[in-house]
């Protein structure tokens, strides 16, 4: 019984700490969604895959696009001739840094060193993956 009480008390304490941070992070994500220009995506339309794929990955990581909204954007870029690698980079990058809210919670839980390393390595590996998929398909 005391263990259940401990679990519930610790859970409430954790929730009280994380909830305000999470709410503020969501507001921040909304503000970015409103003020970041959509034209930024046109940057990834270049024909040089060595540049286009890393840029697509970076845009995916940096911009807080909703997960399911990435697919139509990636498809639109693909239809304009940007290739599978750009689609892979954009989708991969987006899910790595999905939203400011999640990133802040991740930093709070796992530490900024872990998250920074994860983002840098993800950028490198997803870019390489994009180049591979562009060659394969």
């Amino acid at each position: 019984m005391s263990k259940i009480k401990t679990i519930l008390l610790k859970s409430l304490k954790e929730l009280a700490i994380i909830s305000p941070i999470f709410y503020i992070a969501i507001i921040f994500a909304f503000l970015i969604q409103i003020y970041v220009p959509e034209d930024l995506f046109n940057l990834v339309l270049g024909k040089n895959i060595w540049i286009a794929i890393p840029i697509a990955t970076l845009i995916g990581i940096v911009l807080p696009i909703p997960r399911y909204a990435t697919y139509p954007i990636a498809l639109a870029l693909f239809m304009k001739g940007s290739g599978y690698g750009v689609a892979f980079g954009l989708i991969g990058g987006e899910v790595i840094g999905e939203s400011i809210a999640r990133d802040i919670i991740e930093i709070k839980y796992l530490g900024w060193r872990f998250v920074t390393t994860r983002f840098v390595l993800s950028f490198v590996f997803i870019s390489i993956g994009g180049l591979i998929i562009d060659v394969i398909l």
Partner: protein
Amino acid sequence: MSSQIFIDAFFDFLKVLPILVIAIIVSQIIAVLLPSKKTKDIFKENKKNIAKASVVGIMSPGPLLAYLPFLKTLKEKKVAVSLIAAFITGQTLIGPGRLFLELDYFGWEFFAVRVVLAFFIAVAMGVSFKFLERYIKY
């Protein structure tokens, strides 16, 4: 305009709140009931377990947010960050829920290659963290 952002953000927050509550309770159950030594024994750091963590991540549905409190507990119980990194990478790169959307947009070949690449990226991530752990304190 500005008050609308606060309202929209509040409704978004309410949508994620149940997941967050469940995730926090699960993580606290593990924190209280599972001894650190046992946790460390289950999640030994080796290449086989990095590959396993990657596969489990790929197959895990839902948002990463739901797993973060649990992962924090594992980290506090000294589970290797390489396993956590491999899991997160697999979990985020491939979502079972997005399968049909992805098939519809890009076809099965793209999805199949993406799953294979996601596995290797997750493993590469885990191995890189294993190496970096020697020099960086996570």
